């Protein structure tokens, strides 16, 4: 019990300390290079928080990151490193746009649901491939998902060029597939914040319920903690591996669909994998796999992302500094794993020697 409460404290402390250390590290680096860190952070924060437009954009960015973060987190809980989030985002994005373009005349509620569903299905199939290979053949999911990322990239580009559109972009989807909420758009002075934000909040709650209140969620966690003990306890490892990967891909695919319909309204040939996929991994690590934590880390990342744009022109600081701060935060989260690893080890050693007396 005692260790649990100290764990809980650690769980809150680790990300908060990492964020603070990340910002301090960024400030030191700016000082070294002769920039003014106070001015930089001020430009960033006032830029985002004093303008409804840019705050809306930050939340829009946070929306997608919430999905990719949750997607990564669930596979991670089950003990898998789904680095294929970016590819699953992409297949979700292209499928949602495809459906939206194919049935432009359906009523809005039907078309939006159908398009989002298409994204969910595509994403879950894409991740399910890696899950099934892992479950039945023991294939390393990191390698499979990395390869599937590139497959997704090139398949998507092929579809855009040859099936969905001509050249490097598709048509915009019609009004009926739009996630735009007029009151939200006018509230945020024309930003692209959309319905997806509320879907994200609902999904955060559902994720929490699934993981903590259902048997399936318990099994996923149990497999993650100890696959051998779980199968000894009668849980099917294969089923849980596939299930966690499928949900992971579904969340990423939904994120991609919302990114596509909400942010862009179309899809264009990609020169690389979407950054939201990889940033989702960072978000999940910072949120330590907790859905509420992930939600708030996404908002932090959204603010940093959008605020970065203000650095060069308002503070004379290169906007790469924001990426460095993000990287530093992730580094400190990662370093904390290391610190905790040693702490754990010391503790268990102590316990072991005490127990041996």
């Amino acid at each position, binding site marked *: 019990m005692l260790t649990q409460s100290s764990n809980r404290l650690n769980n809150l402390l680790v990300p908060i300390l990492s964020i603070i250390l990340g910002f301090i590290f960024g400030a030191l680096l700016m000082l070294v290079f002769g920039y003014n860190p106070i001015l930089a952070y001020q430009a960033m924060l006032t830029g985002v928080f004093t303008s409804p*437009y*840019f705050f809306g*954009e930050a939340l829009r*960015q946070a929306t997608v990151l919430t999905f990719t973060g949750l997607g990564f987190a669930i596979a*991670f809980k089950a*003990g898998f*490193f789904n*680095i294929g989030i*970016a590819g699953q985002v992409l297949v979700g994005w292209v499928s949602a746009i495809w459906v939206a373009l194919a049935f432009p005349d359906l009523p809005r509620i039907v078309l939006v649901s159908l398009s989002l569903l298409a994204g969910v299905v595509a994403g879950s199939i894409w991740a399910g491939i890696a899950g099934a290979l892992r479950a039945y053949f023991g294939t390393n999911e*990191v390698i499979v998902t*990395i390869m599937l990322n590139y497959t997704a990239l*090139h398949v998507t*580009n092929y579809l855009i*060029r040859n099936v969905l559109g001509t*050249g*490097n*972009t598709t048509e*915009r989807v019609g009004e009926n597939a739009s996630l735009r909420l007029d009151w939200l758009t006018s509230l945020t002075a*024309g930003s*692209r914040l959309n319905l997806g934000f509320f879907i994200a909040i609902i999904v955060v709650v559902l994720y929490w319920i699934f993981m903590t209140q259902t048997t399936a969620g318990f099994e996923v966690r149990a497999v*993650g*903690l*100890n696959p051998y003990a779980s199968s000894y306890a009668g849980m099917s490892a294969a089923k849980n591996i596939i299930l966690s990967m499928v949900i992971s891909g579904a969340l990423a695919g939904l994120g991609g669909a919302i*990114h596509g319909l909400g*942010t*862009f309204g*179309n899809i*264009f*040939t990609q*020169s*690389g*994998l*979407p*950054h*939201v996929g*990889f940033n989702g*991994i960072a978000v999940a*690590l910072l949120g330590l796999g907790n859905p509420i934590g992930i939600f708030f880390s996404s908002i932090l990342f959204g603010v940093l*992302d*959008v605020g*970065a*744009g*203000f650095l*060069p*022109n308002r503070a004379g600081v290169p*906007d*790469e500094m924001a*990426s460095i701060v993000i990287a530093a935060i992730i580094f400190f989260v*990662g370093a904390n*794993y*290391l610190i*905790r*690893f040693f702490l*754990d*080890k010391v503790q268990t050693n102590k316990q072991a020697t005490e127990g041996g007396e």
Partner: protein
Amino acid sequence: MTMIKLRSLLALGTSAFVLAACQGQDAGDTTDTIEDDTEDTATDNGEDTAADNGEDNGDETEEIDFRIAMITDEGGVDDRSFNQSAWEGMNEWADNIGASEDNYAYYQSNDSADFIPNLNQANAEGYDIIYGIGFMLLDAVNDVAEQNPEQNFGIVDAISENDNVVSLTFRDHEAAFLAGVAAAETTETGRVGFIGGIAGEVIDRFQTGFEAGVAHVDESIEVDVQYAESFSDAGIGQQIAAGMFANGADVVYHAAGAVGNGVFTEARNRLESDSDTQIWVIGVDRDQEEEGNWDGGNFTLTSTLKGVGSSIEASANQTIEEGFPGGETIAYGLEEEGVDVTRGNMSDEAWDAVEEARQLILDGDLEVPEFTYSQE
């Protein structure tokens, strides 16, 4: 438990690699629609005329009251290629007319989702012209231009229909044609290579021009064409180049931005391991002679040049002097000195042939085909 944590650490490291590998550099570049009835109104204003647009603020009469901004595509402003040339052009513009640092700025897009916020941010700062660098920004520029009809915009490598947008396009096929002539005059194996970035209209122009240039000299020379489907992955560039050189090609032209770095690496490796073979690389967008330095000399045959920077400079000056050419498409070709090739390390014979072909194009005696696959 600890096993999983170890694994997650390991995976964190892996992800860092992947993250690093995924930082897209979008050089070279591609476009969308292009029309042939473009108005060739390119003016090359070399004169150092200051702004006299009447809006001088009282305090400092000499102050130039004209400000421009650019929004990069996914490659950064320091991508050594496309975006960088635009930014260098803006710096030059400011130097030439004596503008201060406050008169020009760039907004970096790290992701395509950043285009619209960046445009809006620049719009809020009240620049006279905001340039979108690269066809990828076409949709975003159109959206923001429609919402802000009073603001002037520019788009490079694509054509916008909006009245408050000036479109700056390039006849890259003309420069690529000359590169093709140079390659055909230089090859000894009768086989040359072309490496494209992402297939699309702009790179189609490069490919078509290059192939036509080679055929112009000698129809029997074979051209290997391959696309990297990237503008950033040097590894793929090296792989493709290795295949081409192994297949007997001795001149490779790349129109693929940072992918080309791999082409240069492969050529250097081959020359350093066997200095008797003679192979050449042709650079793109800016003079890439530096990239071709090796112990035994330089293997950059020539580079095709694309004057993104000077097109921005020219359109800004035109706006100051005559007003904003909104809704117009300004196409830059050999004639307007918007595209060209460098002398590089061409033999006299090859250079003569290039000069001759250039003259034919300039005189209108030779029409360089523009598209192979993208205009069906």
